[in-house]
Structure formats: structure tokens, C-alpha cells
């Protein structure tokens, strides 16, 4: 629960770890499973999530502050999908360098509850700076988890990292498949549940 007394830093850190959208609420699970085949893909999709969260929270909090109204979901969805479409015109080079399913996952962000969660739950009811810290925590938290999963998958699945050879062979090629994403995400969640249970 968000308390009015929470500082901006507390909002940021809470979403980064204890209320992480992948490990806590599960909103980003689809990205963790399908969008972490390579580090590049994870960085690209995580970066887009961060950008969209900041954009939606900025719009929602600015409209909330100026007009004391909450931006309805559907206009926000259409605005986000328009933004994604326009951005994709400049990103065709990036798509060709990333795994095949990146384009579908990118388009799916327009319908992902992850992208609208902060703007619909908090941003419309708070100041612009607090909303941006909250969205940044959620986005950076998602990005970190995606990068961690992708790092393990890429090293285990391909035996290389950022062009450098870590293993001369592929230690576990299964990690290149969707099953690798499912296994890694499941393991992450178990570790998170164990860490949370100890507190």
C-alpha cells in the first residue's frame, strides 16, 4: 500500500525490489519468459517498458494536477500504441538484429497491464515528480530482472556474452529456447519467495 508519507526515494526503491513487477505482482512475467533470449533483447524491451511507464505516468500525473481528473484507460492505450507505432518506424534496424519474437513482444506492450499499472493506480493522484520516481522504480526494476535472466540464459545457452566467449561450447542449449526462459523465471521467483519468506 502506498502511504502519502513515502518519500520519492522510498517509492523508487519499493518498486525496484520488494514490489518488483516481475517477481512480486507477475505483471512482467511474459517479458521475463519470452523476451530474455539475449541481453540485447532484454535491454531493448526493458528500456521500452521504462520509457512507456515514464510517459504514461507523466501524462497521467500532469492531467491529474492540472484538471483534477483521471485519464481513462482507453485513450491512454491508443496514445501508447500510437507512440509505439511511430517509434517502430525508427527502430527497424534494431528489430532485425534482435530475435524474431521481439516485434510481437514490442507490440504486445501496448496491451500490457505492466505499462499502465502505475499511471492507473497512483500517478493520477499524486505530483509529477513522485509519479516519475514511482514509474522509474517500476521500469528499472523490470529492466534489472530481465537483464539478469537474459545474462544467465545467454551464458548458459550460447556460451558467450557481449561478443566474448565465456565457454568454448554451449553449456546448456536448452536455455536458448522458451523453456529456458520458463526455467529461469521460475527459479528467480522461487529465490524471491524464499528471500521474502525469511524476512
Amino acid at each position, binding site marked *: 500500500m502506498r502511504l502519502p508519507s513515502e518519500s520519492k526515494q522510498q517509492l523508487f526503491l519499493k518498486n525496484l525490489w520488494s514490489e518488483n513487477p516481475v517477481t512480486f505482482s507477475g505483471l512482467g512475467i511474459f517479458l521475463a519468459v*519470452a523476451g530474455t533470449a539475449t541481453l540485447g533483447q532484454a535491454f531493448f524491451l526493458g528500456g521500452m517498458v521504462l520509457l512507456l511507464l515514464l510517459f504514461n505516468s507523466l501524462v497521467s500525473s500532469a492531467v491529474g494536477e492540472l484538471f483534477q481528473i483521471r485519464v481513462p484507460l482507453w485513450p491512454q*492505450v491508443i496514445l501508447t500504441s500510437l507512440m*509505439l507505432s511511430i517509434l517502430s518506424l525508427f527502430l527497424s534496424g534494431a528489430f532485425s538484429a534482435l530475435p524474431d519474437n521481439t516485434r510481437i513482444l514490442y507490440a504486445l506492450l501496448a*496491451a500490457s497491464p505492466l505499462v499502465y499499472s502505475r499511471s492507473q493506480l497512483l500517478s493520477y493522484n499524486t505530483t509529477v515528480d513522485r509519479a516519475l520516481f514511482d514509474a522509474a522504480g517500476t521500469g528499472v526494476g523490470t529492466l534489472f530482472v530481465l537483464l539478469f535472466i537474459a545474462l544467465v540464459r545467454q551464458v548458459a545457452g550460447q556460451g558467450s556474452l557481449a561478443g566474448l566467449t565465456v565457454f568454448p561450447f554451449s553449456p546448456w542449449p536448452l536455455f536458448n529456447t522458451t523453456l529456458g526462459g*520458463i526455467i529461469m523465471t521460475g527459479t528467480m521467483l*522461487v529465490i524471491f519467495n524464499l528471500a521474502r519468506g525469511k524476512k
Partner: protein
Amino acid sequence: MTAPYAISFLTGLLALNPVINLGLIPTAVQGASRSHRQAFFYGLLGTLTMMLYGLLSWLLHFYLIVPLRIAAFELPLLMLLMPGLNWALTVMLKPWPRLEQNLPLFYLNFLALASALLLLQSPPASFGLMTLTLLGMSASFLVSLILISHLRARLETALFLKPLKGWPTFLLASGILWIAFQGLLMMVK
């Protein structure tokens, strides 16, 4: 003569299941697979939504987006279809409250968009092929959801570990199903 139709159905069934094969697991599916009954009704509604949305997307693609060459704006147009589809489903499902009460779980119809995008990635050229691909995808969704709910029920009672409850068990069940679907796909290939 019937080979292309059979291939379309099998492609939808085994290669284009958005829940398992691409790992596109919407949060709602995790919630809906906690009990067999809910999984069945949610699966039926999902099947209906995927079919309707897939059909509308295919028509939109071939009769508006391709002729007008506005591929860049396909996504906003697909998103515009969603409120209409939601409204239509609410009206259509009034006589079936068991199905209607699952409608809010289709938050933004994430699953429908996933299936439409998969379909449009390499769109079937004819209406018949498209319908069969969609039928395959929908059947595969329904079957996988029911199987996941059964697997979860067994796994959650068999493993008494608390940290495995919820998402990890769901992912474990999805992983098992993914292997099964891959096996079937290999056999068909």
C-alpha cells in the same frame, strides 16, 4: 487438396499457441488456472475472444491496412478494435453469466492481441486457412489451460514447499506442457 487446411490447423494447434509456445503468459491465465472449473470457462471465453479478434484483425489487415499501405499504424487500429470487441462480448454473453463473469479477467484482451499478432506475422492467404489456423490456436489454448489447471492442482498438493506455490508452479506446469507440445510438433514435422 486438404493438406494445406490440415497444415494450417496443426500450425495453429502446435506452433502458434500464445500461452505455451511463445511463452506469452498473461497474468490472467495464471489466475484462471487455479481451479478446473474456472479454467474451463475462462478457456471457452478465451477461445471465443481469440476467434473473434483474430477474424476481425485478419479482415482489417487484408481489407484496410494492405490496400491503404498503412502497415505502420496497424497496432493503433488493432487496439481500437478492443473496446468494440469488449462491448460486443458483454452484450453477447448476457444469457451466459458463467462466461460473462470471466470477462474482466481479459484485461485489455492481452491474449487476443497476442494471438492476432501471431496470426498476422505470416497471415494465411485465404479465409478458410485463416479460420483453421485460428481454430487450432483456440483449441490449443483451451486444452493447455485445462491441462495446466490439472497439473497445478497436483503439483501444489504434491509439493509442500510454500515458495513454489503460485507463479513457480504455474511456470513448472507450463514448462511440462511446452515440452509436450514440442514433442508433438517434432512428430508432425
